[in-house]
């Protein structure tokens, strides 16, 4: 009679055996294998003595109290929702509208006789651009901040997953090109320049693999840092936020003062 090996009997005891039925029949008939299985069984049963101490009745509440203050406050809903194709489609449509608004404005301008109407149209177009670009910069900033603080999921882990950031960078890249070209054609050199730099960083991120080594991450972080892009994005975003207010405060002023342009060009 061929006996089963220790490995086969342990697998059988742990429920992982390939030939469970055969082992079961054999053990019922073979005293030697039955004795061996009983010894394995005794050890595994004795291990039950290694019980887990009761962590206390309020353990769940205690864990929550300990981790709650450490949870990031600003989980931004868009990070989740923007990944959804429907929302991305809606944003694409918004971007297309912005482009259309600018193009239309440029074509219509020479035929417009009334100066105040032309001025209003320009202001409206600029407001649309300000809102859309402001939103675009916010979302770009999120990616940059995310990468700046990215780290391996566990100490000693060799790969860092940046696939979420990578996908978002891909999504933002086309919009960025659109805004940069629009800003350049509108003569907004400061905004165009920052968007140009942002585009290079977004290209870097979008073309990176989904999982990168700590060294590759460091290299991306260095590129972001050396260009000061995060700072520039924040400054220009802040200036854009303030612009509608200025226009409302002074509706008859020129749509864009030279000082604002100069200030932005410094960024």
């Amino acid at each position, binding site marked *: 009679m061929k006996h089963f090996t220790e*490995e086969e009997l342990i697998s059988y005891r*742990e429920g992982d055996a390939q030939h469970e039925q055969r082992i079961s029949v054999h053990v019922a008939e073979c005293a030697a294998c039955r004795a061996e299985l009983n010894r394995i069984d005794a*050890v595994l049963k004795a291990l039950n003595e290694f019980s887990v101490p009761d962590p206390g009745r309020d353990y769940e509440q205690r864990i929550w109290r300990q981790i709650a203050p450490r949870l990031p406050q600003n989980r931004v*809903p868009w990070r989740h929702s923007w990944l959804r194709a429907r929302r991305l489609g809606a944003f694409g449509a918004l971007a297309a509208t912005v482009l259309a608004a600018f193009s239309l404005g440029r074509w219509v301008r020479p035929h417009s006789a009334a100066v105040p109407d032309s001025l209003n149209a320009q202001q409206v177009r600029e407001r649309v651009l300000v809102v859309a670009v402001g939103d675009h910069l916010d979302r770009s900033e999120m990616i940059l901040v995310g990468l700046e603080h990215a780290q391996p999921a*566990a100490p000693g882990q060799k790969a860092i997953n940046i696939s979420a950031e990578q996908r978002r960078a891909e999504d933002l890249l086309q919009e960025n090109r659109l805004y940069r070209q629009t800003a350049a054609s509108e003569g907004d050199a400061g905004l165009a320049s920052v968007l140009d730099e942002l585009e290079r960083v977004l290209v870097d991120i979008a073309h990176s693999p989904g999982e990168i080594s700590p060294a590759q991450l460091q290299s991306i972080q260095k590129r972001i840092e050396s260009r000061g892009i995060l700072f520039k994005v924040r400054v220009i975003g802040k200036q854009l936020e303030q612009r509608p207010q200025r226009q409302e405060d002074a509706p008859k002023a020129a749509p864009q003062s030279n000082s604002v342009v100069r200030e932005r060009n410094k960024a």
Partner: protein
Amino acid sequence: MSQSAGSLAVREAAATRESDAIAVERVLAGDRDSYRLLVERYSRYVHRLAYRLTGDEHDAEEVVQEAFLRAYQKLEKFEARSNFGTWVYRIAANYAIDRMRQRQKEESRKETSDPHGLDSGEQDPLAHVADAGPNPERLMHSVQLRKRIQQALNELSHAERTAFVMRHWHGCGIEEIAGVLRSNSSATKNTVFRAVQKLRRALEPFLEAHPQAKALGTER
């Protein structure tokens, strides 16, 4: 299990999964407090695994906290059709392995600087004797057996301990353990076997010499 009890359990599991998915959605939408439900539902479950993997209450608590923090940070990657409990459990197992490795390094450094090992940091085994009961003899055997088990578990490699704890005490499937160990099914089965074999070599002589200790495991 009767058919009605079985279908009730299935319905309960489905309801739990649905309420987990809703909590996850809310957290992702910015409602941080919804995460509390998930922490309170699964922390005790994760604690059992963490304690068996680390063998230390302090480490186990750290593993539980870190697992929930990491799960929160990675929540966007959680797929609604998965089980949140299983997911956070896997994160805890991964972190516990890292923690054990780190602890081993710290201890080997400590041994170098303190060759007499005066401060072993060992916990009082009496503190965790399961259901010690009033019988002093039983208590003594239980303490001795527990110490032996602790030593035997400490002698396993991290992969062996993780595979054994997940398979034997927590009933995890081989595929799931293989995922945590970043290994394949066949290698994982072999790891479980090696673990049991080592535990057997370490505990069998003691159990043979102390039949009272052998009886302890069959009491519950």
